[in-house]
């Protein structure tokens, strides 16, 4: 299954990024093989609609789940419409989170933070 984790860097050992819309990057992982691919998050530079653009970005990659810290209302709208599960990060690195996800030990996120929450927070 293909999932993605919001991250501050481009590898499996990178630290996660709590933000979704303004995350520095997304690491896409094939859970069966642990093959991965990282993409810088172009949406982070937007002044508006960053969450929407980031959600579109991950939806276009056909992921089944997103692991992140905080999700704003617009992004959640898009992810829900795309039937992408949203999970709360439970560890420091991308790799650790994927492992926890595989074991079913990550919580789902159902509540959003206020819009624009991730701007300026790390």
């Amino acid at each position, binding site marked *: 299954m293909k999932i993605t984790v919001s991250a501050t860097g481009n590898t499996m050992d990178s630290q996660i990024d709590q933000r979704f819309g303004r995350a520095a990057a997304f690491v896409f992982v094939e859970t069966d093989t642990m093959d991965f691919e990282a993409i810088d998050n172009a949406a*982070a530079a937007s*002044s508006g609609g960053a969450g929407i653009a980031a959600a579109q970005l991950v939806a276009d990659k056909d992921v089944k789940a997103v692991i992140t810290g905080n999700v704003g209302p617009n992004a959640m709208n898009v992810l829900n419409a795309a039937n992408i599960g949203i999970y709360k990060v439970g560890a420091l690195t991308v790799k650790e989170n994927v492992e926890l996800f595989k074991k079913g030990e990550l919580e789902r996120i159902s509540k959003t933070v206020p819009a*624009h929450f991730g701007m300026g927070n*790390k």
Partner: protein
Amino acid sequence: MKQIVFISGKGGTGKSTIVASLSLLAQSKIIADCDVDAPNLHLLLKGKRIQEEDYFGAEHAVIDSTVCISCGLCTKVCRFGAISKVIEVLPLKCEGCGACVLTCPVNAISLMKQKTGETYVDSTTRGTFSHALLDIGAEGSGKLVTEVKENLFGFADGENWAFVDGAPGIGCSVIASITGADAVVVVCEPTQSGKSDMERVLGVARHFGISAFVCINKYDLNLRVTSAIEFFCEKTGIPVIGKISYEPKIVKALQALQTPVEAGLTTVVREIERLWNRLKTELTMRKQ
């Protein structure tokens, strides 16, 4: 780190003076000036430049005149009046939407990045300071504000506080300034226009779900309006965390590029310290 954004609705209420004073009174902080149209904080903070970059915050349509057949479809389709009858792009009006690019039958138009401002990061004795200047008449203030904050947090090094000096108004610059804040402090003045503007900008904070506090500057200029403001805040559940006296000596201090702290205006300084203590208490009590 807790991010506090100082806004006002109305301009000229004293945000920059208060932020600059706090930069001297508080420990462990970084600072940003998000009034990118008309930034003032750098005049008081005086630091050493550690980063300076051009900011490309917009795209404008560019028409290749060698390909253009002057059919005029672009002029008709542009919602912003940004293409003249002689098929020239008027940069002050172009919003970079790309409608003309899609419409042009000969692909003569493309969108090109435009420089809309410059960002700066300074090292000051009071903390790292991020600010910017929007190019004259440029659009995209909100985007540049975003960049100022991204720069600030890029230089963060475990400080406890981020003080953001916001822009006046309630539009895109202010919205971009307050996003991600742990709290906003609305600095208002006890005038009818000040109160009216304060109410509107508090509405923006509420709209985006951000905790708000009020500080009444020059409060003794009009005790009646001050009371009215306090009454309004009590009714709407917004703590008034500070009241600062009207002190003409502050103007003289600012003319010498000094904050009330440096000028030794003890009454005002004590009032700002009280504001700071109250703010710290409120924020440690609350959970975001």
